[in-house]
């Protein structure tokens, strides 16, 4: 067989498991932190690979998305299915929660049905012991015909045994298929599988059961499929989908009852969870506690993070100046290095403190089980806008900064929910927009500060939710967005795991979003500084000329001056840049405290209160910033990033124009 010459190359091993089983922790314990990240073909879900060398064998472990089964038409389950069928791994490691063997066996069973070589890790073994759950691993191993290894991933217990078991399993023949269905049913499946094109091996029978169940689209014509489905129903008394689900679970139940003994009442496992839920999900206390937790999350990320962001910002401004002076001439080169490249690198790294803090608190909340509770409490409101309960926290974070908000959508497992939440997040008014509001409020609405601010924040969140609702209807008209969510038991998160996750994800952001942020920063620099010799962003620069072309577009919104257009253009770097650009363009100097009065005087010459508010609406709604586009690219891919940019630009223009036109009618 080909297995013999495979020993020189690396062996592919899939790591599968339900969510909340500590799968990724065990993956990291096996592979160390040297990970390779990429994307799954055709989708934007991250593919993480790690390498493991054991007994002269090199294994490449692939962390599959957390899934409950392999039958659904969801993105995650499709990725896992395609991986198993197309890449044909040498073995699959299934990480199961030892405290809940029955439900976890469902996935194991399907892998066995596919003919995969499976190793079963019973993770959280210590927790199961404490809950009085005793599992007879020898009998289990015999029943499944696979190796079973108890593990405690957070303490790296059982990891060496797992490596041994993996090597042995790869070298041995695949396990015998479990006996789940009556013989007539298997024969029926085989008969149907023969009709399927390109179906070979043990996977064929399993795939035949999926097609018959109607879970995923079958590669045969409709009439053939319907004929088989009806014949199945007639012969076996049930729809195929129901038949297979029932038989699979009844098999899992049977195996679990044979090997699991409880020395404590079954409620022991949920004793702590029940106690905590009676507080956290309490009818009166639940929502106030959620509000408190959200406040703490906000405080943790932004109050702790903002000073650090300031330091990084200062560091790169200083570095830029130093480099500019050191290079000296030619001036354009000095400016390219200082104002373009170094500023661009700074624009990426400036988010690192926020991201580390975000990922720290987020992993902790997710791992301890509270995040699912928050989603549970708030789902009713989110559902009104056809979003998932878990969409709430990313949107909330967006008020601080869109980047953590966009990255936090990782918690949503449904693709539709994730994309729509990503679209909604940038509409939450982030803190970078405040300097622009402050300037215009000081200039035009000094007596209505609170009202104007409140209106902007409220319009932002309403536009975000409406966008999710409308774009959801237009782009995903048929997709349902069910809640169906597990509420895992509360657990004490492992600090080591939380820190490792935070660091890993931050690095991935820098790598993947970094290029676009740097690129856009250099591009805007080029627009504002070319042709050589022009004042930054001045009338004769490319940006200035572009501003003149753009200006008529914004005339119906009330701010048709080329300076306003250039300010919006540079504001794409970061919204607060709007203020400094206006300072340079209107007063010819950098805005210092003293110069602000001067700038306000100039603003009165160019804006009326109505056009000022229209401009604020535009600032609120249009393209969040290059960094957020980079973040969207990382989480959802290029197409969605571009769509968001164009969409927000359009919405900003539309709302500003509508406001200005209607308000002028009444004024």
């Amino acid at each position, binding site marked *: 067989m080909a297995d013999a010459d495979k020993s020189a190359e690396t062996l592919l091993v899939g790591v599968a498991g339900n969510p909340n089983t500590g799968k990724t922790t065990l993956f990291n314990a096996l592979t160390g932190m040297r990970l390779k990240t990429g994307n799954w073909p055709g989708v934007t879900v991250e593919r993480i690979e790690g390498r493991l060398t054991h007994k002269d064998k090199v294994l490449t472990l692939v962390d599959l998305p957390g899934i409950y089964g392999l039958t659904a038409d969801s993105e995650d389950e499709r990725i896992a299915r395609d991986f198993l069928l197309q890449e044909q791994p040498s073995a699959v490691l299934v990480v199961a929660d030892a405290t809940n063997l029955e439900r976890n066996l469902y996935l194991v069973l399907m892998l066995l049905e596919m003919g995969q070589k499976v190793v079963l890790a019973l993770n959280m073994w210590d927790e199961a012991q404490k809950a009085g759950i005793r599992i007879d691993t020898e009998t289990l191993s015999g029943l499944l015909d696979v190796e079973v290894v108890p593990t405690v991933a957070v303490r790296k217990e059982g990891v060496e045994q797992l490596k041994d078991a993996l090597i042995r399993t790869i070298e041995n023949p695949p396990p015998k298929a479990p006996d789940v269905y009556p013989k007539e049913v298997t024969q029926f499946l085989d008969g149907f599988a023969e009709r399927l094109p390109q179906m070979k091996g043990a996977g064929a029978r399993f795939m035949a059961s999926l097609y018959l169940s109607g879970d995923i689209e079958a590669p045969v014509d409709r009439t053939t499929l319907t004929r088989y489905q009806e014949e199945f129903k007639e012969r076996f008394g049930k729809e195929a989908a*129901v038949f297979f689900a029932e038989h699979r*679970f*009844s098999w899992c139940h049977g195996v679990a009852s044979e090997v699991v003994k409880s020395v404590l009442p079954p409620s022991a496992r949920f004793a702590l969870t029940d106690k905590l*839920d009676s507080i956290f999900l309490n009818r009166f206390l639940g929502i106030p506690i959620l509000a408190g937790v959200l406040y703490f999350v906000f405080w943790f990320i932004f109050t702790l993070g903002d000073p650090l962001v300031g330091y990084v910002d200062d560091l790169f401004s200083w570095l830029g100046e130093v480099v500019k002076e050191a290079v000296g001439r030619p001036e354009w080169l000095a400016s390219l290095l200082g104002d373009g490249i170094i500023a661009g690198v700074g624009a990426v790294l400036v988010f690192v403190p926020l991201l580390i803090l975000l990922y720290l608190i987020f992993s902790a909340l997710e791992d301890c089980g509270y995040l699912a509770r928050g989603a549970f409490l708030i789902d*009713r409101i989110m559902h009104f806008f056809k979003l998932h309960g878990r969409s709430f926290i990313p949107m909330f974070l967006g008020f601080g900064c869109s980047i953590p908000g966009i990255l936090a959508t990782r918690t949503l497992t449904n693709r539709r929910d994730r994309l729509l939440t990503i679209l909604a997040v940038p509409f939450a008014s982030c803190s970078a927009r405040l300097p622009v509001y402050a300037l215009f409020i000081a200039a035009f609405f000094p007596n209505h500060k609170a009202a104007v601010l409140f209106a902007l924040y409220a319009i932002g969140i309403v536009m975000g939710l409406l966008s999710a609702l409308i774009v959801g209807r237009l782009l995903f008209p048929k997709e349902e967005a*069910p809640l169906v969510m597990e509420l895992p038991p509360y657990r004490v998160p492992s600090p080591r795991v939380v820190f490792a996750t935070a660091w890993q994800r931050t690095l991935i952001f820098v790598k993947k979003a970094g290029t676009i942020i740097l690129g856009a920063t250099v591009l805007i620099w080029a627009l504002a500084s070319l042709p050589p010799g022009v004042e930054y962003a001045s009338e004769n620069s490319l940006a200035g000329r572009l501003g003149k072309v753009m200006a008529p577009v914004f005339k119906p919104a009330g701010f048709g001056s080329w300076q306003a257009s250039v300010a919006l253009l540079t504001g794409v770097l970061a919204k607060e840049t709007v203020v400094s650009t206006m300072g340079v363009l209107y007063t010819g100097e950098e805005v210092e405290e003293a110069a602000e009065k001067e700038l306000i005087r100039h603003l009165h010459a160019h804006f009326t209160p109505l056009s000022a508010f229209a401009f604020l609406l535009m600032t609120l709604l249009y393209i969040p910033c290059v960094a957020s586009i980079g973040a969207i690219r990382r989480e959802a891919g290029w197409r969605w990033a571009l769509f968001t940019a164009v969409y927000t630009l359009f919405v900003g223009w539309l709302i500003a124009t509508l406001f200005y036109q209607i308000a002028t009618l009444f004024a």
Partner: protein
Amino acid sequence: MKLNQLKIGQTAKIVTVNASPALRARLFSMGLVPETVVKLLTIAPPGEPLEFEVRGTRVSLRRDEAETILVEPLKESKNG
């Protein structure tokens, strides 16, 4: 009766799941298949979603999702 009509603490056995194919597949993979015993644990303050105990796990469903599941209530058990 339907799953969304259970009272808190009440247990029932699933008879049929009449959800759309996509939703049904998700419900099935969470263990909500016919013959399964489920128990309503709690309801979120705004009146939904609902939290159920299913095969040793906790699963939350919206009302309209629970409505697709037909159940047969079981006699109150002593430790229920």
